[in-house]
């Protein structure tokens, strides 16, 4: 009896979480005039919205850009954040706590404070309209550092001491000795970073103007808020579907890892 109630509650909630996506999907394959009264299945089926979107924007190139940029950033974040996280967790040096508090502070800092100056930095470095502008400002991530710190704290000191006796330097300790034992954290950081980079819109909008270098969310956002969708709701929804799709596909394949990543992201 109690079980049945639990199932009912969960099913109701699950519908509330999945249905909007379903609605968006079917709305994107419905004729424009039917979207307003759509509830479950469209009376007519059309791919018009998708065809009209593909003819208007270079979505393939944008997909490539997004994958490239997100992958490089993910790699860099894992690499650099692990170094810093290790230093904070397993070494002692003057200023260590200071750096730790700086990281905490930076995390609470509204990005609006840094937005304009960062743009100016990009300009001065000549990065505007290059992949570099999309990548460099994101190569280290505070949250990732904290996650690595957390992971390294719980790795046994004996492992490190043994490695030191074998003459390993810090880099080898981190990436060869300790990495195998913190794979969940690496996956977590990887997925979190990849996801947030993939979904980033505001920064690309500011630093990239060349359509060939635009990331997919940027292109889709410009398409759906700008004039090129010609006010057609169906086409906008089609572009939103396309923007959501890659990450949902990745999610269905690696669901276990996605959720496990989030699960292990609990810092105490």
């Amino acid at each position, binding site marked *: 009896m109690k*079980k049945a109630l*639990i199932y009912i509650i*969960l099913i109701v*909630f*699950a519908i*509330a*979480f*999945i249905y*909007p*996506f379903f*609605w*968006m999907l079917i709305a994107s394959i419905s004729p424009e005039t039917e979207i307003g009264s759509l*509830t479950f299945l469209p009376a007519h089926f059309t791919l018009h919205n998708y065809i009209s979107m593909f003819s208007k924007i270079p979505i393939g190139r944008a997909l490539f850009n997004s994958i490239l940029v997100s992958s490089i950033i993910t790699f860099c974040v894992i690499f*650099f954040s692990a*170094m*810093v996280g290790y*230093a904070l967790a397993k070494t*002692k040096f003057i200023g260590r706590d200071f*750096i730790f508090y*700086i990281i905490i502070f*930076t*995390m609470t*800092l*509204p990005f*609006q*404070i*840094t*937005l*304009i*100056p*960062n743009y100016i*930095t990009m300009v001065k470095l000549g990065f505007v309209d290059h992949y570099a502008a999309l990548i460099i*400002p994101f*190569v*280290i991530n505070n949250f990732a*550092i904290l996650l690595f710190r957390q992971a390294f704290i719980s790795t046994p*000191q004996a492992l490190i001491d043994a490695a030191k006796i074998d003459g390993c330097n*810090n880099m080898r300790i981190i990436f060869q000795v300790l990495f195998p034992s913190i794979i969940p954290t690496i996956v977590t950081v990887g997925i979190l970073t990849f*996801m947030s980079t*993939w*979904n980033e*819109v505001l920064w690309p909008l500011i630093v990239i103007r060349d359509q060939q270098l635009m990331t997919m*969310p940027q292109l*889709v*956002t410009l398409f759906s808020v700008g004039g090129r969708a010609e006010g057609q709701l169906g086409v*906008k*929804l089609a572009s*939103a579907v396309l*923007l*959501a799709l890659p990450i*949902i596909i990745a*999610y269905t394949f690696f669901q276990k890892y*996605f*959720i496990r990543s*989030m*699960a*292990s*992201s*609990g810092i*105490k």
Partner: protein
Amino acid sequence: MTKRKFKIGPYLLVSPYVLFFLIFVAFPVLFSFYLTFHKWNVISPMEYSGLYNYEKMLHDRLFYKSLINTLYFLAIHIPLQLVFSLGIAVLLNTKIKFSSFFRAAFFLPFIVSGVVVTIMWQQLYGFNSGLINRLLTDIGLDRIGWLTTEKMSMPSIAIMATWKNVGLYIVLFLVGLQTIPKYYYEVADLEGATDWQKFKYITLPALNPTIFMVVIFSTIGGFSLFIEPYVMTGGGPLNSSLSSVLYIYKQAFDFYHMGYAATLGFTFAIFILLVIVLQKRFLEKNY
């Protein structure tokens, strides 16, 4: 580990961060701080203006409004977030079938871009043809002006934000729940404790760190609320959904008052820290 010997190693390890910090955090923050004492529309040369921006802020009705709106958002969003994520997590933890399916479903909104969620919910919230109102009329209730009334705009956005993020917190609570040793409950069963008593005296205290984290994350998230009101309401009606970040954005990118926007940014940053400190005090005192 010895403390005595100076070692270069750790410094090398943190050097990328220090470099990154100097370029992308310290410099921008200092530059912004410098900006708070200037008038600058970006394209003309900067003009020193003393404390003008701060004075202007103290007399700016919309500054207070946006701050109150953001706190209002948090006051709705955080309890909703806690109740739903903890509630669902507890249900999922009861050894039911398909629990991974449910978990996956709740998690779905969290992984997609905020732009997608916003485009979607704008349609759901429509007054005349929105799905939610159509459902309400079908079951004989009155339509609600979700995004078009002063009273409902911020709660509507808070509900949407909860919907988007709750999956993450469910998972965090699940982890927390799984770390509670089973024999606690076994002992409680032996002593004849009710479900509610078990929840109150075992589960809740054990989850305290997770609760704290959820509150902090939601607070930071709430203070950076931007894309939702920007796309859905533009801050209206009557500025009822003008979030602090949206106001900064308006001042900076609509009106080009960079100095003033920086002043707002700084003030809000201090508020965030203040709120977090207060929350920490409160939560630590309670347990």
